[in-house]
């Protein structure tokens, strides 16, 4: 909890422009000062969006790790990231400037294509009358993801002068956070969170194996579908507003497991919370390390996440 409040304060205060506590106080009393405008219009939305995206990704990761019974699973393993990248780069290169409900074309395209790709992957991995195998989903996801990636790379190659803009999306950034995006992500997070909590016990059962879970009264197929949908919604919405931010969905659930164990009834909420906090801090680093240049946040999360992941692997074996 302290971490969260500390994170909020620090994040509000740090950035390329010098501000201090008195400015923050000014902001609360009298929102007219120019620095208050920065806190209100730029830092606050960033802070909130970073929290939401972190929560979405971690929750999605926790769900998918349970779904695949595989610790390596993360929100991007079913192809969401590749699909969403394709949509975002497509929007970027076709130069659409339409805005619906304050969301840019890029956001909308990314969300739609991310979700679409996973739906296609899911449908493709259904066997007629046969047993639905989770491994098939994984492999199909990888294959479809690879295809989407190659198409995305081709677009970037073809229009090389927009390459730099594409990079910022592909590595993730909260630089352009605004309130519209917050409203775009929030409903998905809330719905998924409530859904996840409600079905957390079933996820616990699933970890015992499909047959065992079934024999214990868990409607395996339905639960699997719901979780997949929720996890994909979370990942798509997160990625659509901030680009690809890796490792958060992968690492945070493991971290939480180390702290409080694998019971999904606690894993889900704490993953979301910790994920949000992690993103707040990462975003803070991203905009202060090389101020006024911003480092895409995906770099920070990978730089922190990867060594930590290796450490975790060592610890387990």
């Amino acid at each position, binding site marked *: 909890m302290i971490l969260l409040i500390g994170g909020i304060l620090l994040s509000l205060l740090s*950035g*390329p*422009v010098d501000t201090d506590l008195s400015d923050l106080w000014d902001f609360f009393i009298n929102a007219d000062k*120019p*620095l208050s*405008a*920065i806190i209100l*219009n*730029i*830092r606050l939305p960033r802070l909130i969006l970073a929290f939401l995206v972190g929560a979405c990704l971690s929750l999605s990761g926790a769900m998918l790790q349970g779904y695949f019974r595989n610790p390596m699973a993360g929100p991007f393993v079913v192809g969401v990231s590749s699909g969403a990248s394709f949509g975002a780069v497509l929007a*970027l290169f076709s*130069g659409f*400037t339409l*805005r619906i409900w304050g969301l*840019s074309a*890029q956001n909308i395209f990314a969300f739609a294509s991310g979700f679409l790709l996973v739906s296609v992957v899911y449908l493709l991995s259904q066997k007629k009358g046969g047993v639905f195998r989770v491994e098939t989903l994984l492999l199909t996801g990888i294959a479809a993801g690879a295809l989407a990636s190659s198409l995305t790379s081709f677009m970037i190659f073809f229009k*090389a*002068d927009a390459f*730099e*803009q594409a990079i*910022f999306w592909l590595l993730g950034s909260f*630089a*352009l956070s*605004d309130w519209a995006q917050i409203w775009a992500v929030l409903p998905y997070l809330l719905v998924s969170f409530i859904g996840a909590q409600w079905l957390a016990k079933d996820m616990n059962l699933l970890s015992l194996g499909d047959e065992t879970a079934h024999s214990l009264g868990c409607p395996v197929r339905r639960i699997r579908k719901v979780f997949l949908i929720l996890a994909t919604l979370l990942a798509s919405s997160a990625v659509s507003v901030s680009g690809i931010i890796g490792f958060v969905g992968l690492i945070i659930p493991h971290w939480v497991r180390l702290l409080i164990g694998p019971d999904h009834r606690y894993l889900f909420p704490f993953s979301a919370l910790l994920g949000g906090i992690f993103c707040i801090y990462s975003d803070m680093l991203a*905009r202060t390390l090389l*101020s*006024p*240049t*911003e480092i895409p946040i995906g770099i920070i999360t990978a730089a922190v996440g990867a060594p930590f992941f290796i450490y975790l692997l060592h610890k387990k074996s």
Partner: protein
Amino acid sequence: MMKKFLSILVLSISMTSGTLSQTLSVRDDSGHNLTVRGTPNRIISLAPNITEILFALGLEDHIVGVTRYCDFPEGAGRIEKIGGLVDPSLEKIQALRPDLVIGFRGNPIRTLERIRSLDLPLFVLEMGNSLESVFRIIRTVGEVTARREEACRLAGDMEQKYQKIRTAVRSSTEKPKVFFLLSAMGLWTGGRGSFLHDLIEKAGGLNIAAEIRRKWLHYNREHLIHENPEIILIICRSKKEYSRAKEWLEKDPSFQNILAVRKGNVWFIDEDLATRPGPRLILAFTRVAEIIHPEVFAGDDEKKP
């Protein structure tokens, strides 16, 4: 009653005198209208060429923010940096309280939209891909900063020099084949959409990559040998890079038979002059024309480096 009438009278007089003074509406290249009321005092430039144009219009003291790539003229180094071309810092921009932000299509659309959503006055320019579009850009910047006279003078000057050279090279019947190279790493060149293509063609040369519609592309080695250009221009930032690139070309056995390499017709063009659509582009143009048609300049006394 009298007081009320008087105040209305005074009000209406001041309102009409307001409309008589300089307020005009200029449309930018993203379709938005900007109302100009006199010269802005806190301008932020989101591209190096825009900075150069602003300086050339005498607006040095009116600029409060530039990108980290804005390195010309000297004075630009002292102005606060707000980030790069694709990653300008929104915080910095807002904190500087600009009354005009000039951006271009190379800045990310989303960033430009966000700047607009913060209620900052933004003017977006389309850079175009020819020398003639630069004249237009200069005049437009002049309109938006209420420096129309200076802008017309600057653009007019450039145009004069430009037309002079064009007429001169037109008298030449040859159109030598030219290839331009952007860096020593591979064969990066530009097709029909690039500035350099326009410079070469208008200077009376033939860009061998002309049929390709792309702005920048990786040229095929075999094509280069087959096309056999007479002149090669190396576009880079320093003489050192130029020598390195020249060496690479001369040492490579497959390039030995290219006319330009054999005759030593491999020239240096300063990248900053040739790729920024601003006041210095005319210098690059002059240089390119000199290289392609030296006979036209034979009468000039000055020896350019």
